[in-house]
């Protein structure tokens, strides 16, 4: 069950638009923020709110990069591996993250803090190599600056 406040807000937003389905991505994002990822229950809830079949939500959820159908960590790290970042060392950045966090691409650390996802060009090629952490950009990165960022996020959790 959703908290009443979130339920009310979503119902209110949906009532305010001409076509409920246009809010499908927003609703998925809101539920994902609440549950931590788009759970099976969230798929059902989203469908109910929007008045469509769960499979229509699933069609979208399985298409989009930023919708997670499996649990993710508190911080989702998107590592750009497209051309400009590659030329400027994204492979080193990615390898360093694997080693430092002890996880591979698509995995989450045991303490549920970090998830690592390689992605296409994030539109910050002037800051290559670049990554996003929870949609905030960092770059141009070096191994040292990356260490500092990760260490700070780790320290923040307490």
């Amino acid at each position, binding site marked *: 069950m959703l908290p009443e406040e979130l339920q009310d807000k979503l119902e209110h937003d949906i009532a305010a638009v*001409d*076509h*409920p*389905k*246009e*809010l*499908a*991505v*927003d609703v*998925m*994002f809101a539920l994902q923020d609440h549950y931590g990822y788009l759970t099976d229950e969230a798929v059902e809830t989203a469908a109910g709110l*929007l008045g*469509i079949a769960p499979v*229509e939500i699933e*069609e*979208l959820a399985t*298409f*989009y*990069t*930023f*919708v997670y159908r499996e649990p993710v960590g508190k911080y989702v790290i*998107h590592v750009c*591996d*497209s*051309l*400009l970042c*590659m*030329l400027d060392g994204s492979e080193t950045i990615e390898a360093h993250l694997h080693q430092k966090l002890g996880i591979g691409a698509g995995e989450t650390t045991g303490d549920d803090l970090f998830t690592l996802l390689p992605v*296409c*060009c*994030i*539109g*910050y*090629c*002037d800051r*290559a190599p670049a990554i*996003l952490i929870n*949609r*905030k*950009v960092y770059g141009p990165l070096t191994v040292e600056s990356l260490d500092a960022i990760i260490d700070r996020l780790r320290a923040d959790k307490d």
Partner: protein
Amino acid sequence: MTSYPKVLLQNRKPDRIATIDEYRESGGYTALTESLGKVPSADVRQTIQNAVLLGRGGAAFPAGMKMSTVPEDAPFPRYLVCNADEMEPGTFKDRVLIHADPHQLIEGMVLTASGVQAEKGIVFIRPEYESAARILEREVGIARDAGFVGKDILGSGFDFHIDVHRSGGRYICGEVTAQLNALEGRRPNPRKPPPFPTVKGLWDRPTLVNNVETLCCVPHILKNGADWFKHLALTETGAGTKLYCVSGKVNTPGCFELPMGVPLREIVETHAGGMRSGGTFKACLPGGASTGFLPKEHFDIDMDFEGLKAVGNRLGTAAIMVFDESTCLVRVTCNLIDFFARESCGWCTPCREGIPYIKDLLWRIENGQGEVAYLDMIDRMARHLWNAYCAFAPGAAAPVQSLLEYYRDELMAHIEGGSCPFDK
């Protein structure tokens, strides 16, 4: 350094966005004040057409002409969608525009909408640009409070609302017809026209889709006139200024506003600070990942749509990715084809099957397990990509086909040497 007039980025600041007051001080919202409710929409369209404003989203379609394809008697509500998906690798100008001067885009949307009598505006924005989405939401509110957006704008009787729509994130959502599906909450595979979106688009209503940069040009054209705009370009064939995103092996990558048609050499050597570490220019992709390699014999080319067309290439998004003699172009193409393989929407077979096929062969060559026969196999499959359902797959074919055309020696060196000659 030659200095050129700044138009779109005249209010750009190193660390913050321009406020509505700063935008107005630079002449912002005068076009809107002077034309809304006063200039007939047909005249707005005609001025844009006379200015030869070509779409900045990659396809270079004339913006005024596209506006005219909305039928006079088309039903309401009509929509204007601002395409801020910007997922073409190497391209980041729309992000710069929104962060520099958001009201320029807002005014551009209102004016463009007035040309087709659209009352609903939507900015479609990629999730990686969350900060830009928030800026726009806030600044649209400020514009509404100032009377420039919303109901009965400045007492003109014209209504126009702007909403920000966040994408779930996929490259194909930048393609117009896929974007319409995305906006309707459907799985964003492309649709094949007809009907064209300007006739039957969002929710079966006429929908004009334009790129951020295209829309940002509109207030300046209406304020200063079509001739002024045309004369901003250095070439006869060009019009306006252009945001060139330069990246790769240059000293100062960035987004530079320069006259349309400025020579490539000048962009690289002067504005982007020259080649990095004293390297020499080998090639570039002149307009994003969906354009072909432009070899060094064209280093003096004029960078406008016609100039690149004349050499069988495209200006695309004008995202110039620069490579030097130490760059392995086979490896570059492998990276691009990885991108296309990952982002294919999977709807049609030539793209879904063809791109991974090329990817496999190209990586074998890069890894030193190539065979001469692969070159023809890649070539044949690249030609099949042109039969795909949308323009995505021909875009993927562009770097591959130009690699075969201009850099066969480099491919052969990989095959004959049994390894990548650039690996040291």
